[in-house]
């Protein structure tokens, strides 16, 4: 479904991606792990077209994602941002139904609201939340609203950027379960980036480890613990000593 080949990206001469290769099969849930600053978010932004790669190719369903109609491409995506990135000035239901209130997927306002309330219900939020502003919600509720927005237009591909960052372990578990359920139920292709190993085990079909701008290891989540790569072993066990240098 998504294939990245030899992707390079530098910022002000500092290389972030140094030839990343990755294939995400259709309908699978791929989780990218790696330390801070290894290029995970940049990789995601390159696929979405928010950042233009210096070289390499990005194919989505066999089509070059860097060419052609960008709006049509983005209409196939949903994305949950790390901080939820809800629009402060809009009530919750309009955040969820944003895509359904404008553009090619526009629906009548009442229908868009009904869909928004249904998506909120799907992520465990009642209709009473619909008319609140994002600032009136807790961090966990904002993540759920962000998740509802990501799935509102039933996208084929969903990206999750650090979905459990800043949440307590129980809420993180709830969000992980929701993501797993929704991805399975919708049959969507999912790409998640996270540091959180409990998220990896809950969400992933396959795991890729990104380090120094390259994918060091990629395989099924069941094989991750036995992966021979010392970088993967250090990361998943959280050891301070190992090939990944840690600043003290």
């Amino acid at each position, binding site marked *: 479904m998504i294939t990245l080949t030899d992707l390079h990206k530098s910022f002000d001469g500092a290389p972030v991606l140094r030839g990343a290769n990755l294939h995400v099969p259709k309908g699978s849930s791929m989780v990218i792990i790696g330390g801070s600053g290894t290029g995970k978010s940049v990789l995601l932004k390159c696929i979405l077209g928010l950042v233009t790669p210096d070289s390499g190719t990005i194919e989505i369903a066999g089509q070059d994602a860097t060419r052609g109609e960008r709006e049509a491409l983005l209409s196939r995506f949903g*994305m949950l941002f790390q901080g939820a990135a809800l629009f402060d000035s809009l009530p919750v239901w309009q955040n969820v139904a944003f*895509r359904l209130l404008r553009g090619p997927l526009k629906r009548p306002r009442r229908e868009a609201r009904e869909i928004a309330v249904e998506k909120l219900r799907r992520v465990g939020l009642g209709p009473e939340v619909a008319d609140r502003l994002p600032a009136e919600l807790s961090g966990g509720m904002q993540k759920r609203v962000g998740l509802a927005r990501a799935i509102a237009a039933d996208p084929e591909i969903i990206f999750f950027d650090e979905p459990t960052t800043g949440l307590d372990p129980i809420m993180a578990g709830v969000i992980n379960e929701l993501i797993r359920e929704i991805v399975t139920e919708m049959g969507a292709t999912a790409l998640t980036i996270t540091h959180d190993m409990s998220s990896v085990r809950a969400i992933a079909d396959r795991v890729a480890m990104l380090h120094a701008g390259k994918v060091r290891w990629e395989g099924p989540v069941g094989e991750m613990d036995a992966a021979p790569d010392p970088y993967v072993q250090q990361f998943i066990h959280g050891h301070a000593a190992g090939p990944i240098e840690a600043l003290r």
Partner: protein
Amino acid sequence: MSLTRTLVAAPAAALGTLGRAVIRALGAAGRLTLFALAALSHIVRPPLYPREFGMALLHVGWLSLPVVGMTAVFTGGALALQIYSGGARFNAEAVVPQIVAIGMVRELGPVLVGLMIAARVTSSIAAEIATMKVTEQIDALVTLSTDPMKYLVAPRLLAALLTVPLLVAVGDVIGIAGGYAVATSSLGFNPVGYLANTLNFLEPLDVLSSLAKGCAFGGIAALLGCYYGMHSGRGAQGVGRATKTSVEAAAILILAANFLLTGVFFSA
């Protein structure tokens, strides 16, 4: 040998610094021009987001009325006092209505409204958009197939282009009214005569120049707020810097544009 080297190196370094500053300034001017052209092109190309446009009209136009009115009324009153006192030095106290009218309509009305809009609207646009940028709301817009230039910039720019001339017209009238109130209440002017002198003295070109300046200043104010917001750095510091720089740049450009437009309208 080392003295010769120093004598050559110091001016070269100074020239290098100056050259880099000029190149940076030209680069910034080029980026701002491209941004302005893109923003204007989004105004004339559908879709226009009516809700965002309506909110921008309310925010830029209606909600700016109190500050514009207060600024104009006090300036008009002070202007009447100054002209009366200055005119008394050569027995020309009677010109108060004419000079208040021409001063407000040609210069003070547009410039003060422009500067108040820069303080109120440019800062809030820059802070709002910069905050949206650092909290990834701009990226979220893109992933939701919505062009930020069309959704955030075009409605604000169009609203400013349409409402600031009206605010300037209101400011002109209130400023003249402030002068009228002071002149008739404490300087002994006849109310009917004051109004007649004001209306007879003003020409259509005075009003036209005032409205044209309002349009230009509104465009500058909104454009710079959007530009610095969209190009904000990271974190709270980035938002603060974007807001401060946008207001400084808008104020300077408004004053420079005022000089140019005054030359265009009245130099002949």
